[in-house]
């Protein structure tokens, strides 16, 4: 009898504990602030896929789309913080100052800002993905598949993130094909199908037969499909928009990180972090490789992907030279995160100058 009582007491405690944990976990509400519409099939779309993963994990979520980076961002953030959200993900660089401003007023709400560098308060974390690892793979494919040895690259803004991508892409392409040249067109937009298509057209007219992009719409791959050249999907798997042109895509996979962070809030283990995850942590995902690629290239890419994930291969391994021939990274060394974060020079083989 005595034993039975203890046992039932213990088991009811366990049950109570699980129930409480479950209840606490279910109570956590996460909010997401998006720069574009959830249907952009690029940046915002992928963040929303991540949000859905959080929902699937049993948490309530809210999102606000199309929030301009003007004075409006601050109001939306404050409203979300005020209406019972425990963690708020702000998914565009331009939300950096409003995020930190509102975080100061709501010390009990956690803020997660994507792609920024300011963490002015203990409740602000930042996160970003090592997209350049994905671009090493794209560069390898582009360098192998090009016939004209001219590769086009539609870039958005001359910030380290984008320069790093161009460099990583070019270095990988040179490794398999030393004769290639990367031509850049700066679109000065993250999302503008019209401008992006024009940029792609200009590159194709200059002889590029593989087009890479660091902007978010599907216009470039569609333009490539029409012109009969190869392209790569950005942010999401864009294969269905241009089945012939798209060789593979680099997908932004935010879900695991989002679920992880929301769970941390639920368990009370959330802490301030600066996260920069790549292929190894699954934040950067390579879509299916197109069957137009030769089998040996496909297996080479698979191996490279595994090596990047394990850290055996680093995208920026010396010797790396800049356009003028100055040594950037010595032989046998790899670029450290500090250098990557502030990268503002092109490597050898990229054509043109960084707009200033």
């Amino acid at each position: 009898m005595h034993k039975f009582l203890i046992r039932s007491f213990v088991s009811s405690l366990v049950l109570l504990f699980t129930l409480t944990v479950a209840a606490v976990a279910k109570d956590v509400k996460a909010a997401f602030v998006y720069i574009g519409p959830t249907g952009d099939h690029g940046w915002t779309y992928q963040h929303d896929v991540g949000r859905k993963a959080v929902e699937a994990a049993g948490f309530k979520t809210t999102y606000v789309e199309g929030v301009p980076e003007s004075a409006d961002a601050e109001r939306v953030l404050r409203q979300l913080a005020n209406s019972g959200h425990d963690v708020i993900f702000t998914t565009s660089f331009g939300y950096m100052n409003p995020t930190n401003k509102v975080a100061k007023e709501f010390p009990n709400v956690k803020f997660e800002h994507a792609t920024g560098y300011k963490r002015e308060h203990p409740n602000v974390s930042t996160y970003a993905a090592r997209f350049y690892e994905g671009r090493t793979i794209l560069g390898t494919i582009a360098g192998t598949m090009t016939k004209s040895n001219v590769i086009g690259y539609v870039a958005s803004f001359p910030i380290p993130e984008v320069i790093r991508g161009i460099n990583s892409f070019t270095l990988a392409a040179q490794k398999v094909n030393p004769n290639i040249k990367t031509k850049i067109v700066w679109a000065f937009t993250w999302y503008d199908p019209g401008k992006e298509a024009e940029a792609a057209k200009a590159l194709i007219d200059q002889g590029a037969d593989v087009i890479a992009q660091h902007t978010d719409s599907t216009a470039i791959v569609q333009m490539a499909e029409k012109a009969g050249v190869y392209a790569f999907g950005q942010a999401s798997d864009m294969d269905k928009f241009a089945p012939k042109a798209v060789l593979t895509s680099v997908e932004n996979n935010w879900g695991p990180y989002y679920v992880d962070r929301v769970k941390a809030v639920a368990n009370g283990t959330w802490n301030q972090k600066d996260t920069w995850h790549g292929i190894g942590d699954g934040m950067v995902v390579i879509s299916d490789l197109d069957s137009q690629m030769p089998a040996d290239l496909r297996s080479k890419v698979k191996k490279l992907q595994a090596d990047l994930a394990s850290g055996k291969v680093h995208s920026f391994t010396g010797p790396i030279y800049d356009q003028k021939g100055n040594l950037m990274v010595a032989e046998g060394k790899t670029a450290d995160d500090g250098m990557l974060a502030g990268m503002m020079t092109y490597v050898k083989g990229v054509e043109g100058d960084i707009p200033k």
Partner: protein
Amino acid sequence: MIKIVKRGQPSRAIFFFTPVLAIFLTLVAGGLIFFILGFKPFEALKFFFIVPIADKYGFSELLLKATPLCLIAIGLSFCFKSNNWNIGAEGQLTFGAIVSGGVALLFYEQEGFYILPTVILAGAIGGMLYASIPAILKTYFNTNEILVSLMLVYVSKLILDYLVVGPWSNPEGFNFPETRQFSDSAKLPLLFEGLRIHAGIFLALAAVVISWFVFYKTYLGFQMKVSGLSLKTAKYAGYKGKKMIILVFLISGACAGLAGVGEITGPIGQLHREISPDYGFTAIIVAFLGRLHPVGIIFASLVVAITYLGAETAQIFMQIPKYTGQVFQGMILFFLLASDYLLFFKIKFIGLKK
């Protein structure tokens, strides 16, 4: 039976009644859209139009939002009253913000009472300079001011892009497209602790008072009215048309420039690529909804401001797509233009003869 009869002179009452009717029809149509989308219409309308301004903070945000709309619309009403179609207030706002932002950056980390007035003045001058381009081209080269002013909007945005990406970008900002934060001396003072409403609202109120005085108490106001009704009459009366065109464009540009100053030295505090969610275009709706009357414009700017706030609240609490805010703005203009039919025609209900 319903019969449509032409009116002689539209009555004053109907003149101010149609905007109210337009808002009412927008609400009905909006409710209907919500219903079709599968939302409860009354609840949706409540989250759209009441919840956002139910507390002190919400109300202050409404005023914050209405301030640039009111200011620009007042400026535009000078142009529209006198038959000058300035569609480029967004560009004048942007250019005003560029000039005043540039001055504010010159005073980076400096203090002084003279900084803020200089920054404000620079914004007004910037807006005037930019508005003078379509005005001068119209008066001396007979160009179409609608096209010129509209196209200059995109030019101004490209100039802003260039500056924040290149020469004016924050040296410590990893080359991200934004400038440094302005010093406190270059920022408009906040009116209340914890709220974002700033001294810029006084600029809007001053514009309201001054415009009322000009429209209804001065010779210039009379000239504008006559030119608006009939350019030929104005010419016959010997009014100096060119001078007036340039003057109304300058006033309009100054107001838009000041609205830009209010945004960047108020809630934003720096220059970056997105300083205005198209206030310059939305203000056109405000000006017409307010019947180009200063007091009407105050009410209209509040109504339109709420469509911005309501769209956010409706998405947060009911998951209604945020772009419905723009649908509402479009519907208001649509119903206003449609109900203006009533200005010149009246509907008569005639009993069937037995």
